[in-house]
């Protein structure tokens, strides 16, 4: 048996604010989607963080991460590893430089902006800010990045490479992803409706989340993390969901599928993703309650896996499966609810799918009082 690893602290920042606000926002509150920043196309609803985070870092992605991490500021960084999950890193400002360059204008930006594409800057920025002296690295497997980061962190701890691990996920809205998903026809022009029979696309969001991992038993333990690849298509999941099923089974090794109480699904709201995921979950987690949180937070890309694991842990701690906003008429067989439901959860799973035919699953075991 591998040494136990637990979540010693968690937090997040989304369009609904901190963890408390976000958990409440999963079920009620203001409509989360709007037209976004000034550069964003007005016809694509996105979920923007409204907190003023600009003073924390000139790169919005890193500022979001630091704002989420404020409750941990002052943490002893000795032997602390940072595993940072992101998709586009600080690309938002790098886009300005590239726009000036391709239009033949003098590039009025410095080295810092030209380097904003370098994904590792996130781990460095957060590591310097919090004084972490352990290994720092970035995982960038697109929309599964955050889930993968937990597995890397757990292995670093078990191998004795650090004393504690700070798993951080962050992504800011930027033109690359907003216009990119628009170019693929994957972004809704109406509303994100995960698992709804009338769903027509995703809504991008921005945000950040964190989890502090430590060795030893705790109230919420990391029971397993696994990834598997479809080897099928770069942007479409394998229709049978075999890769996702294999990832869930690997992450929950030692448990029976029927023991899974709750799955926080990837549930982007695209017709293809949600259909494949529904089929896979019916096999890999029969009987589990399903929550689809992107109808509230938007799809926060590289941050999604961390935010959703944090929300799953909070759901297990409170004994409440949250509602799935945007889903009025669920796909047949998917046990989502449009109101929060009280339910004891001992084994919870969070899953994400990504470009590259990538599937990731994370399992949490709750040992606290129900």
């Amino acid at each position, binding site marked *: 048996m*591998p040494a136990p690893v637990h979540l010693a602290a968690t937090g997040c920042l989304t369009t609904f604010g901190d963890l408390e606000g976000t958990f409440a926002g999963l079920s009620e509150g203001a409509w989360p989607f709007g037209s976004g920043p000034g550069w964003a*196309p007005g016809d694509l609803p996105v979920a923007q963080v409204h907190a003023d985070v600009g003073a924390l870092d000139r790169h919005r992605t890193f500022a979001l991460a630091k704002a989420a991490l404020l409750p941990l500021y002052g943490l002893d960084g000795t032997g602390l590893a940072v595993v940072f999950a992101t*998709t586009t890193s600080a*690309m938002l400002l790098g*886009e300005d*430089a*590239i*726009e000036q*360059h*391709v*239009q033949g204008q003098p*590039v009025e930006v*410095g*080295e810092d902006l*030209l*380097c904003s*594409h*370098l*994904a*590792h*800057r996130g*781990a*460095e920025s957060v590591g310097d800010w919090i004084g972490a002296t352990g*290994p*720092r*690295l*970035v*995982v*960038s*497997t*697109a929309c599964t990045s955050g889930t*993968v980061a937990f597995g*890397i962190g757990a*292995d*670093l701890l*078990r*191998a004795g*490479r650090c004393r504690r691990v700070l798993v951080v996920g962050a992504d800011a809205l930027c*033109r*690359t992803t907003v*216009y*990119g998903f*628009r*170019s*693929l026809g994957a972004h809704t022009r109406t509303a994100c409706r995960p698992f709804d029979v009338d769903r027509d696309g995703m809504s991008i969001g921005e945000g950040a989340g964190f989890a502090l991992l430590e060795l030893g038993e705790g109230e919420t333990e990391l029971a397993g993390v*696994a*990834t*598997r*690849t*479809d*080897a*099928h*298509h*770069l*942007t479409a999941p394998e229709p049978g969901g075999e890769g996702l099923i294999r990832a869930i089974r690997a992450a929950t090794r030692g448990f029976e599928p029927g023991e899974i109480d709750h799955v926080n699904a990837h549930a982007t709201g695209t017709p293809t993703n949600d259909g494949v995921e529904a089929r896979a979950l019916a096999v890999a987690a029969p009987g589990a309650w399903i929550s689809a949180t992107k109808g509230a937070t938007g799809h926060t890309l590289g941050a999604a896996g961390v935010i959703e694991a944090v929300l799953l842990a909070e759901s297990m701690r409170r004994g409440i499966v949250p509602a799935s906003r945007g889903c009025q008429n669920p796909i047949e067989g998917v046990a989502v609810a449009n109101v929060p439901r009280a339910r004891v959860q001992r084994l919870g799973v969070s899953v994400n799918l*990504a*470009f*590259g*035919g*990538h599937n990731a699953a994370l399992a949490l075991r709750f040992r606290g009082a129900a």
Partner: protein
Amino acid sequence: MKATVLEHYAFSWPLSAPQEIPRPAAVEAGAWRRFSRVARLAAAAAAPVLDPAELDRDELPMFFGTGLGEYSSSYGFLKSLFTRGPAMASPLLFQNSVHNAAAGHLSIALGLRGPSETLCAGALTTLRTFERALCWLEANSGFALVVLADDVNGESADGWRLGGMMGEPGEGGAAFLLAAADPRAEATLELLPRSEHAMAASSRRAAPFFCTADAQAVSNALFAGGEHRFDYPGCTLVASRL
């Protein structure tokens, strides 16, 4: 942490002397056309080390490290957006712009359906990717495929030149097939802790921005024989030929 090295292959060249990347026989021509340059570099390195017949490609983990990521595809996508407008922004370049696009292409072309992780750590990318693979092997045993690739070419290099970020741009690919312990192996990789004094000294060294320079050096050391030590902040990577 220590692992044996079953196979390794690396290549690199300076931007001033670019070379054509040979398409591995294992990759179909149609797929090759859709590959980004990073994916081509990665595939050209990975295909030759995947020969051992007993490898279970449904479970073989791949750890892909890249210092620069898919900068060229990101640049190309944004160029299409800024010059031709949103309606003409290229979906192909967008899907290739994510850092794990190369790992995805490799997975499809080579039939790799196991765990996959794409890692970035700037100048320390080679170290961190090896560290991750060694951690994995310690926890899971079996085999691990480490692939490293970075491209710097054409227009994408302009940004780096403008910023004065890269004294000598280059590109390349490298791959290492590791095993927790395999009696057939003639080489090992080991990660050792370093003293504080050594950490301070190593942190002052100038490092290249592309990760394959380090990977090429490790592969060269394994071919050369003997024991070679690569000092990094906090640790030393030891490459030994038995």
